[in-house]
């Protein structure tokens, strides 16, 4: 019986290449510091956009190795410095993937805190164990040498880029694109007509995965078409 011969899969070329970038960030210390939940609620409304960005999107990068227990700086402070466990849970549940603008994200965070303080007015003036320091981030984009024109090159680039690059394309991208998606999924869909794969990539849970997990899961999703 003749051995089955596996024919090489034809290479599917992207209409436009994927350029892998990365980013570096610098934390700028702001002037606002909240010592009570009441002050925190006020400052949440008045702090700069890049402070909201730093304490939600960017902090996921600083804590990319955690799979549980940490989703944003606001929830963490309310839990550890104010001991308001209920509010901490609600803030921790605010999912940045559902927002494509800082304005909308700020609105959701502010409403969560305000609603809580209406129900728990005595929590407003209670002194926190330590202040919340509003910071912001200055982010600089860094090109990398990796460019993908097909799936094999894409997977190869994905294996080699830094975790900061994954954060830039997979998490930060939402605010740039103004879409509930990310750079990887969009490229798969628009340049390779692989919308279903892009969808699966977009559904990877960033809150229960480390960024290294994200890399490995994307590679696993891509495996059948490599």
């Amino acid at each position, binding site marked *: 019986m003749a051995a089955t011969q596996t024919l090489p899969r034809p290479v599917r070329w992207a209409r436009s290449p994927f350029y892998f970038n990365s980013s*570096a960030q610098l934390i*700028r210390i702001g002037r606002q510091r909240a010592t009570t939940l009441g002050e925190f609620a006020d400052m949440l409304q008045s702090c700069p956009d890049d402070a909201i960005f730093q304490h939600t999107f960017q902090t996921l990068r600083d804590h990319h190795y955690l799979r549980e227990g940490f989703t944003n700086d606001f929830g963490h402070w309310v839990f550890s410095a104010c001991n308001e466990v209920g509010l901490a849970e609600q803030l921790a549940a605010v999912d940045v993937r559902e927002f494509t603008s800082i304005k909308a994200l700020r609105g959701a965070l502010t409403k969560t805190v305000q609603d809580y303080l209406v129900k728990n007015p005595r929590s407003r003036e209670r002194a926190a164990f330590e202040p919340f320091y509003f910071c912001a981030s200055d982010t600089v984009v860094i090109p*990398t040498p990796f460019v993908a024109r097909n799936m094999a090159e894409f997977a190869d680039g994905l294996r080699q880029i830094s975790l900061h690059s994954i954060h830039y394309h997979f998490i930060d991208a939402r605010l740039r694109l103004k879409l509930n998606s990310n750079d990887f999924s969009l490229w798969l869909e628009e340049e390779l007509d692989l919308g279903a794969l892009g969808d699966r990539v977009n559904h990877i849970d960033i809150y229960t995965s480390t960024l290294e997990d994200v890399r490995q899961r994307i590679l696993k999703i891509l495996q059948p078409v490599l």
Partner: protein
Amino acid sequence: MAEKEKPSALSTPEKPRPNQNKAREDAPLLREDEVPVKAPKPAELCPAEADRERRGTGPAVPPPRERRKYKMSETPPAPAPPPRLKDYEPILGRADIDELRFLARQLRGKTVKMVNSTAVGGGVAEILNRLIPLMNELEVATKWEVITGGNDFFEVTKGFHNALHGGEYHVSKEVLDIFMMYNEQNRQRMEFVEDLFVIHDPQPAGLIRSKRDRGRWIWRCHIDLSNPHPEVWNFLKPMIEQYDAAVFSSPSFTRQLPIPQYLFYPCIDPLSEKNKEIDEAYVQKVCDDFGVDRSRPILTQISRYDRLKDPVGVIEAYKLAKKYVDCQLVLAGGGASDDPEGAVVLAEVMEAAGDDQDIIILNLPPWSALEINALQRASTIVIQKSLREGFGLTVTEALWKGKPVIAGAVGGIPSQVIHKLTGILVHSVEGCAYQIRYLLTHPEFAQYLGKNGHEHVKENFLLTTNVKRWLVLFEIMLGMTRTLKVT
């Protein structure tokens, strides 16, 4: 006993342990000039203990037994050559190093001058010794200059340093004149032709008077300004306000200033003597020589003998925990030889330890980096139960080594120890004791904390991260890059 023959490590007498005896028989661990010695004689003990021996009171001291003397070098070893960028690749990965190279490429041709007040000793000099070679390897020409001054100047700056930390200080016209006179002398002596100037700490802050249209000036403040002496701060503030930016080690260390303020966490070098990977055989040798039994849990606090590090509180926590779990406690630090207060605290620690043979108290010279590295790696849990703290780099070192850390929630420690995620924060002796028991009986959770702690340091507190921060800051200062705008 001649000075050079004194044991550099004090410890409570220990009971012989099978594994140590085995090591002593099996391995030729001592150099030829080292000989086993008896336990410390009364004259070598701390005053309280010597007094107790003379009076024949207090807890019964077991008869002296033969123990190995750990021979420390009496002078600091010559510094190792600084690592090259490629040496960090196995730790960080190629992509991260390439990102540094890309950022630096933009700055090629630009020149930087960093100025501080000492070339050796102290944390700032230690950081600059590592940072400057990496910057130059990245072809960002960086020069390091040190200001000079007489004893009167350094007395004033020491007073300023303590006052900025909240201490008392008498500010007279004379001390302000001394400060400005030496700053002016240095300003006249130095050239200021670079593109960027980074001035470290308050001592050389007055050099800002050389600021001209060309060049951007950054003030790097390594100290906690949260509660400064008002007169000293009011004197320095007009100078600081002339800088283009300031850099602090923690948001809580800052003051309100009209210039941008950036956050650079203090960092450790993963390739330094204190943090590099070391042979298991060396770890074993250090433990054997110090009398630490590796077959049983080891709790360690590395700190100078200072009440703010609460070494007596650590002993109390250990004693509470030991009612339920077997463990040893190693307290290792310095400062007892050259600091009268340190010697008093060491005596208090010896007193608190009593005759517990499982408490090992070590007074190490400042050049004990490798020994400290070994002790940290041998530890089951690292404790830093400070009552007040700057940033707490000993915590960073322990986290880097993947150790579960129990630490006081003070100073910069909560930036490093995220409670129950990268370590455990405690607020009392009792809390510390409970957490010791919990971690010793839940090793899988201890391991989880250690793993997270290592990653937390890798992301935020390594020298290479600070190299990246400097490169980004330089680009921003020179207007060479556009930062991403989010809306």
